[in-house]
């Protein structure tokens, strides 16, 4: 369980996040929306324990972000907004590369299964020959090697065709329910948010997203 209380983030004197509080359970998919520059990536980085909050407290499974950072990070799967893979290596080599450095040992068959589960089947293909959608899938697959229980995804489906997006969506849903993971992800695609998320957090003052999602019958919360 993730619990955020009174979270603030200031860059110098610029206030990005103000007094943000929410909590989320394992098995949930929580959407994070807001206009460009609202602070979605900022929040995800704080939840990933790679950036410090200016004030407030965060707990994950009773681990305090202020004290147990390295413990928390072991359980986090972070999918960066920019694709972070080795372009010159194949899909297989990328998976093996990050498996070597990961907290968990995985066999090649297990690694290949992660990819196949999200329909990434070009195992021997160099990444630079892959389509954008395939690269996004690999970007996600690498983050899952160590079986994280908290998955943080920063626009994981940007620039992907509808079919691949559906495949990734279905995969995330299975990860949440079957794998009992908590998934928090950002997207600018409201259709995707509506379809996939159990709950939505709107960052920022404006009511645009709130109204839009409320109308669609979503559980929405402005934070």
């Amino acid at each position, binding site marked *: 369980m993730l619990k955020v209380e009174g979270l603030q983030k200031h860059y110098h004197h610029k206030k990005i996040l103000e007094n943000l509080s929410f909590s989320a359970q394992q098995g949930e998919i929580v959407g994070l929306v807001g206009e460009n520059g609202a602070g979605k990536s900022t929040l995800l980085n704080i939840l*990933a*324990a*790679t950036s410090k909050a200016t004030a407030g407290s965060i707990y994950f499974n009773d681990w305090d972000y202020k004290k147990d*950072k390295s413990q928390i*990070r*072991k359980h*986090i*799967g*972070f999918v*960066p907004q*920019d*694709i*972070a*893979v*080795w*372009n*010159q*290596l194949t899909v297989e*080599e990328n998976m*093996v*590369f*990050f498996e*070597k*450095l*990961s*907290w968990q040992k995985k066999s090649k068959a297990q690694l290949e299964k992660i990819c196949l589960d999200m329909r990434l089947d070009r195992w021997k293909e160099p990444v630079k020959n892959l389509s954008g959608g395939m690269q996004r899938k690999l970007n996600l697959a*690498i*983050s899952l090697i*160590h079986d*994280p229980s908290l998955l943080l995804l920063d626009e994981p489906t940007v620039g992907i065709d509808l079919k691949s997006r559906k495949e990734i969506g279905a995969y995330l849903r299975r990860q949440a329910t079957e794998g009992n993971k908590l998934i928090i992800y950002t997207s600018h695609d409201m259709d995707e948010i509506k379809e996939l998320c159990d709950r939505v957090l709107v960052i920022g003052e404006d009511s645009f997203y709130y109204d839009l999602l409320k109308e669609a019958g979503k559980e929405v919360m402005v934070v």
Partner: protein
Amino acid sequence: MKEILSTRLLLWKKQWLSLVCWLLLPIAITIGFLSTVETVQDDFQVPVGIVLEDDTEASHALFDEIADSPLVSATILGETEALRKVKQHELDSVFVIRTGYEEQIHIGERRDLLEAYYTNRSFAYRPVKEMIVSIIQQETGRVKAANAVIALEQQLQGTQNLTVEEVVAKSREVQQEQDLLRHSFRYQGQAQAEAGGFIQWNPWMVWAFVTLLMTIFVFDWVIKEQKASVSIRFPFMKYSFTFYMLINIAIYVAVFFIIDLATAGLFYGLYQESVSILALLTLRLMLCLFAFLLVSIIRNAYFSYIIAILWTLILVALSGAILPFGSTETAADWLPYVNPLYRFLTGELTIGWFILCLIGMIVWYIREEKKYA
């Protein structure tokens, strides 16, 4: 650790050919350069005739030394034949070693030992003459020094009550007078200026400059891997990005050093030039840390290539490799500080620059670790 090595092998698999090329290039360039220089110098050998009026051990020794010079090809001739050949410009010049050469040398007299013939087309007469004169000077200097030592010894035996201070004072005096204890400083890497301006290249000098450049080139992996944006994944992995980098630097040091050892064996076989393994190791450590810090600061592959090339050229010029007649005596004071290769080139351990780079590494490590702490 083992895991990091296996990830490195994965990346190397994609570029092993270029990696091997970069690693072997210093050897190839050194051998190529030395053999080119040799051929060029062979083509420029000046034909000189030597007439040995004085047929003694000393005069033959003089001839051998002249013949050893890469500048000249010397032949012993009779006087008539030699003069005919000079006139026909078959020989650049002729030097007659006069009767009594050996005796004169032994009494430390160096006038009228030599007679020379040349024509208005003898372009190399002067440098060759200077070379021979300097050999003779060396010879007479040695004799003088020996005489001084003998005199000193006799004096010591006669007066047992000489004090240490007196001996030291005397030896100082002798040193000043006779240049007896002149400290002959050979800069290992320095292109040695042989008489007449021909250069004896030391393979390790050529190699050191090339390997400096190549190390920086090879270390562009640092830039590529920082740019690959995969570093963002490391907080969630077993090893921090800084530790991963550190181990990789160690891996590169090891690979470079293996090649360095092979180079040492090769140069010994080819040129009979030996090198201290420890000097080589400290140089290699320093070079890798230096290259790493340089590319980490510059963070741009092409820009760091340019800096590397410019800097190497400046160092080459500073070291007097291009200008062998430069004032190395005065340069020697500050050269060790600005030239990281200096210690190695003088056959010493590269300690100062290594420590400097080590401090740089520690600063880098602390800063990077803080970033994700």
